[in-house]
């Protein structure tokens, strides 16, 4: 009924004593997430909202058996935090931090190649399995348990989409923001593979944007291997080339990454593409009713 996170998820918040970390720890606790530990080096003696704080991820694992990390540490230290969690053997690492240098992420990606840890993000809202747990910063109340999966490169745009789904009565199995940076830990395809195996997920909403070729690669994968309905939306049709549209990864460069190419690839793979964001909820409903 969900992938990667559910009721059994035990979260450690890295950077829990910071402003963002503390705020969202409370939000996650309110949603019902089991936040079992926090980590802030040098502050391993206090509590945040009743959550014990440790100096290292290793200690949090040993004392609290956490298996998922949620990272709020500032950009200069975020790569260290990710690698720390991976070295400590966590199953899933959700990195919210925006603004990590690209070459730091190159390092992280290299390190993760032969590790079991899955990384979501960075520069992402996180992951939520509605009604079970949320690991991230998305507003909980707009979600509703159900059978639609959402994978997105964006934050608020995802909330908009989820809200439309919920409004039209379509609940969600798991929603994942994979992040808006050029180098991210896990891609559309990584999660599509998981949703393929998840019996409760009946369809997927894929939200892309300009920059890179992740949507084209996802289209190839879906055409060849994916067996559930996919509805896509691509942001940035009106974006000019050469400019970074907010997200570090959202840039059309060297003729690559245009919204129209992505839409073309998705359509060619037989995927329904909603061209207007306002229509997305209705489009999804239509496709799912037909299938």
């Amino acid at each position, binding site marked *: 009924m969900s992938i990667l996170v559910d009721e059994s998820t035990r979260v450690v918040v890295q950077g829990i004593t910071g402003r*963002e970390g503390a*705020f969202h720890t409370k939000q996650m606790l309110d949603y019902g997430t089991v936040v079992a530990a926090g980590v802030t080096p040098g502050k391993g003696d206090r509590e945040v909202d009743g959550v014990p704080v440790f100096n290292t991820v290793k200690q949090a694992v040993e004392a609290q058996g956490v298996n998922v990390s949620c990272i709020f540490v500032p*950009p*200069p230290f975020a790569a260290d935090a990710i690698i720390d969690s991976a070295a400590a053997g966590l199953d899933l690492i959700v990195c919210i931090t925006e*603004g*990590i*240098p*690209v*070459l*730091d*992420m*190159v*390092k992280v*990606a*290299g390190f993760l190649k032969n590790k079991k840890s899955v990384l979501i993000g960075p520069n992402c*809202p996180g992951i939520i399995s509605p009604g079970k747990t949320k690991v991230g*910063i*998305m*507003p909980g109340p707009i979600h509703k348990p159900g059978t639609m999966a959402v994978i*997105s*490169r*964006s*934050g*608020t*745009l*995802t*909330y*908009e989409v989820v*809200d439309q789904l919920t409004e039209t009565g379509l609940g969600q199995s798991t929603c994942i923001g994979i992040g*808006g940076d*050029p*180098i991210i830990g896990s891609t559309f395809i990584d999660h599509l593979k998981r949703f393929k195996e998840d019996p409760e997920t009946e369809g997927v909403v894929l939200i892309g*944007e*300009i920059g*890179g*070729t*992740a949507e084209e*690669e996802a289209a190839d994968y879906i055409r060849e291997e994916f067996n559930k309905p996919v509805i896509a*939306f691509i*942001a*940035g*049709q*009106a*974006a*000019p080339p*050469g*400019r970074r*549209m*907010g*997200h*570090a*990864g*959202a840039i059309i460069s*060297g*003729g690559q990454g245009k919204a129209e190419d992505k839409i073309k690839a998705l359509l060619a793979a037989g995927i329904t593409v909603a*061209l*207007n*964001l*306002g*229509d997305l909820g209705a489009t999804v409903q239509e496709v799912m009713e037909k299938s």
Partner: protein
Amino acid sequence: MKLHEYQAKDIFGKSGIPIPNGQVVTAVDQVNRATQIISGPPWVVKAQVHAGGRGKGGGVKVVHYPYEVVTATESLLGKHLVTPQTGPEGVIVNQVLIEEGVEISHEYYLSMVVDRTTACPTMIFSQAGGMEIEEVAASSSELILKEHIDPAVGWMMHNARNLLYSQVPPPPFGALRALMSVMANVYKIFMTLDCTLLEINPLVLTKDLKVFALDAKVTIDDNALFRQKELLLLDDPREKDPLELMAEKYHLNYIRLDGNIGAMVNGAGLAMATMDVIKMAGAEPANFLDVGGGASEDMITKGVEIILKDRRVKAILINIFGGILRCDILAKGVVAAAKKNRIRVPLIVRLEGTNVKEGREILKNSELEFLVAKDLGEAASLVSKQVSS
């Protein structure tokens, strides 16, 4: 952050990548001295602007007499240069680079970027130098060779050999060492200075097998500037749009575009999608503005002000899906902006998410005139109406 050609070449020279002798001038009276120092004829006079396509815009001149160096410089310095990558108004040339001419026997293309799919720094090499690489990619992609570098082991000689010996025919034996050294240095600079792009086009070979970087494009990762403090000194704010500069100061993500509908949104993806909505409605967005997840009331106020400063703006669409950014904060910021500035254009507001009720209340109770859109579809049709009216 983009570097100027002369700044990038300065880094190249210090790192062991051969560059032609050159001198930057910021005033015409510096030209004669520069011409005396730099051997010629010929001399090359190059406008120093961040915009690409400079050659096509007349920003590069090859001259053969000292007095021509002066006239070429005069024709550029302080003038507006229009290239395929600037708007029709062009950009002002504040610096000119005067260089010795180099006799070219072959032109290569060499660049480094981070490849998204493999997450590896990747060197791109082509014997079709001097052309726009996009054009080569479109017409003869087999001429473009790529070598992914595993950052765990760094640049190795076999990477260079794979690129060089795949050329048909390979570069002359006597030039291989110099080319390999340039490649190794490109990798080193790229990694040390947190580049997102380092491009040498053309990288030329002279008849006596010397190698020179004739042009240089370097972009630094903005996210890494915290550890590249010296590079910050190379920032040239004159190259930026004044409104974008102002937005930067307030940590707002603002990009000026060519349309007439201003937009203020939270979140980059939603901001792009909002631009798309505006375009679908038959209008053109005047800007991209993401106020971010953690925007304060003051940032919202500044955002509205910046949009208003753009005289082309005929209407403003505010589209907020409250998550971390609460709708009441947004509303307060907008109201504050309206108090300080006369909002001279129609304002369309669409609020949703956290504290939406409080937000709508605040707007309603203010003296602000605005149109409410309850969803994106309605926002689009309101925009459309503004344009056609």
